[in-house]
């Protein structure tokens, strides 16, 4: 089977041959833009609804030829962003909605309880969906998809917004479902260490072709570029000797006067440090970054930045989704937006922009339209467009979501370079591999409190 998107010459899928048996746990891996989502949508029978282009060759789902007709309703699908997948007002209503659409005889109340308890949603059954954190919303979206009782479940990077414990729980639940109900699971994922022991079969893709299809044990992954020690590039001084660039003093914050998202948090960050803030979903990581940037104001306590510039200028914040910020007609224009707004001279804007683009390896793409970049390149562009400003503190929210190993390496290298030049980095991440590779210090947040603050090997004062 091959697929070519409308208006393009390069096929997104080329000569793909695959046979999947009921009850298989298939992990699909590939670098960004290699066609794994396109393949997944075909396997879910949604290519006619979700893709614009031409599918050639033949493929069958459940014994039916679906090449030209599609097969909507054949598979359940869980996407990366849970926000768009939920339609109910409360947790119970969300699952009930799926049960309403389900055919066959079953005990509705029992099924509702079973689906709620799969992901520990029982105590939250009356909660409004809008009040749940992204991690809980993702649990709910998987539970409501399982409530439809599909034969096949496709999950496209479902752990992007999940903490370690929840991601483990998701993998356990999916494994149990395949054993007990014969569900076939297709899982598109970058998290290889978690995927390999879980999958019964691994499919690796590159440039639209399947380059590996077999047992996960037989798969040898490409080397991870960023896996050098975190202290390999550093100032060579302990954090005690370094200048303090950011101080968070007894900060508390609650949304709309409700439960405190952060409670009495104190943290000091020195120049040259890369501090990773880790913790489960809803522990307050993103809130902390927004407070440091100045998007939110603390209810109590204060945040002091050593830079003479105001906090909005001194702190750079890189968000997760690049499509939420790209607007200019060229990569250069996009990257120079921040320094232009900081009223720097034209020469300085130009030199800072070129320097930032070089730091992330996009100097040769300066004249391209940002929307034509790949996802990984867009992520690097958003990083460059923050680096081009006068920031001395760089905050990043989940910098590795949706990125492949090559992009990991480039982003890790850029952060090390920034810290080596005297900047401080504060990043919130669920990705333990990335944290191990870049962080010189790990701060653990739990329910709005700092429960652990550890300098990593080679950087202990």
């Amino acid at each position, binding site marked *: 089977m091959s697929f070519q998107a409308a208006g393009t010459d390069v096929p997104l899928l080329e000569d793909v041959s695959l046979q999947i048996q009921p009850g298989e746990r298939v992990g699909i891996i590939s670098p960004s833009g290699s066609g794994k989502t396109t393949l997944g949508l075909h396997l*879910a029978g*949604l290519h006619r*609804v*979700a893709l614009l282009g031409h599918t050639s060759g033949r493929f069958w789902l459940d014994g039916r030829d679906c090449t030209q007709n599609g097969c*909507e*309703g054949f*598979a*359940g*699908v869980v*996407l990366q*962003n849970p*926000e*768009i*997948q939920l*339609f*109910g*007002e409360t947790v119970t*209503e969300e699952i009930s*909605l*799926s049960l*309403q*659409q*389900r*055919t066959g005889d079953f005990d509705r109340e029992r099924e509702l309880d079973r689906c709620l308890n799969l992901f520990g949603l029982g105590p939250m059954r009356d909660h409004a969906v809008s009040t749940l954190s992204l991690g809980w919303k993702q649990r709910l979206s998987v539970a*409501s*998809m399982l409530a*439809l009782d599909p034969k096949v479940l496709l999950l496209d990077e479902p752990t992007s917004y999940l903490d370690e414990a929840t991601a483990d729980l998701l993998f356990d639940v999916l494994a149990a479902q395949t054993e007990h109900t014969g569900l076939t699971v297709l899982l598109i994922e970058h998290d290889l260490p978690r995927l390999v022991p879980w999958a019964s079969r691994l499919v690796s893709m590159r440039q639209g072709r399947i380059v590996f299809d077999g047992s996960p044990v037989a798969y040898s992954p490409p080397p991870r570029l960023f896996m050098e020690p975190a202290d390999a590039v550093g100032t060579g001084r302990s954090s005690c000797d370094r200048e303090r660039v950011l101080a968070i003093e007894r900060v508390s914050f609650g949304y*709309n006067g409700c439960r405190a998202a952060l409670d009495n948090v104190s943290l000091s960050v020195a120049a040259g440090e890369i501090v990773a803030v880790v913790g489960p979903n809803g522990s307050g990581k993103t809130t902390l970054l927004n407070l440091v*940037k100045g*998007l939110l104001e603390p209810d109590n306590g204060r945040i002091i930045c050593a830079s003479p510039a105001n906090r*909005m*200028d001194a702190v*750079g*914040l890189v*968000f997760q*989704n690049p*499509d*939420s*910020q*790209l*607007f200019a007609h060229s990569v250069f224009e996009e990257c120079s*937006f*921040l320094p*232009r*707004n*900081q009223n720097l001279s034209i020469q300085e804007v130009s030199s800072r922009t070129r320097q930032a683009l070089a730091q992330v390896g996009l100097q040769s793409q300066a004249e391209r339209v940002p*929307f034509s970049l790949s996802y990984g390149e867009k992520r690097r562009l958003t990083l460059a*467009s*923050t680096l081009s*400003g006068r920031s001395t503190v760089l905050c990043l929210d989940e910098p590795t979501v949706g990125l492949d190993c090559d992009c990991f390496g480039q982003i890790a290298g850029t952060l090390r370079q920034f810290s080596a030049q005297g900047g401080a980095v504060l990043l919130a991440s669920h990705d333990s591999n990335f944290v191990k590779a870049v962080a010189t210090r790990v701060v653990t947040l739990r329910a709005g409190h700092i429960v652990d603050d550890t300098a990593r090997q080679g950087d202990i004062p």
Partner: protein
Amino acid sequence: MTAAWWTKLHPLTRLALFLTVCLHAALGQEFLPQLLLFVGLLLLLFTCGAAASHYRLLIWAHVLGLPGTLLLFIAIGYEHAHLWSEALSWGVVEGARYALRLECLFLANLVFISITSTREIISLFSHRWMPTAAGTLLSTAVRFVPLSLTEARRIYDIQRCRGLRLRPWAPRSWLPIIVPLFVSQMCRAHDTSVMLVVRRMAPRTGAASPRKLGSADWLVLGLALAVCIQTLL
């Protein structure tokens, strides 16, 4: 706890009531019924547990809209009479009448959104007589509005971090919000419509039959029709 009375009405009945109120607010000539309608809608908004953002919207609409409307009518009055005293007396009365009309339309909209969930609105478009593509499009559009507001706020925060300063008189300064909003909402609309199909909520993809109209619904629909005819005549 007993369910609110409006939850017993079919979403279609609620939509019909909403349209009737809109029609009456737009075309009704009598001041007193308009005033009563306004008070009734205001009370309903307070009792139906509308979101705080709806109240904020209401207050801003008053603060920004009312003085502007009155000034506009006073100016029109001056154009006709060339006397400030007459312009003032005519402009205030007519302006208030016009503002009341707008307020009723605005309040009716807020009440309808507050008492009808997105899922119920979606279910309205899942009928046999609705073409599949049109049903999916309308369902996506309904979902689009509340999500767009949240997304616009998020994009504004992101661009604020990049030094954006919005100037209402300079449309160019709005581009960093409008372009990403358009792009992300196009992607979101696509993903939402796919999810509607996957969740079997798009027309003709589900097994559940739509809710039937009850006797109370028929009664209210009849009354609404009578009010519409009376207003039009």
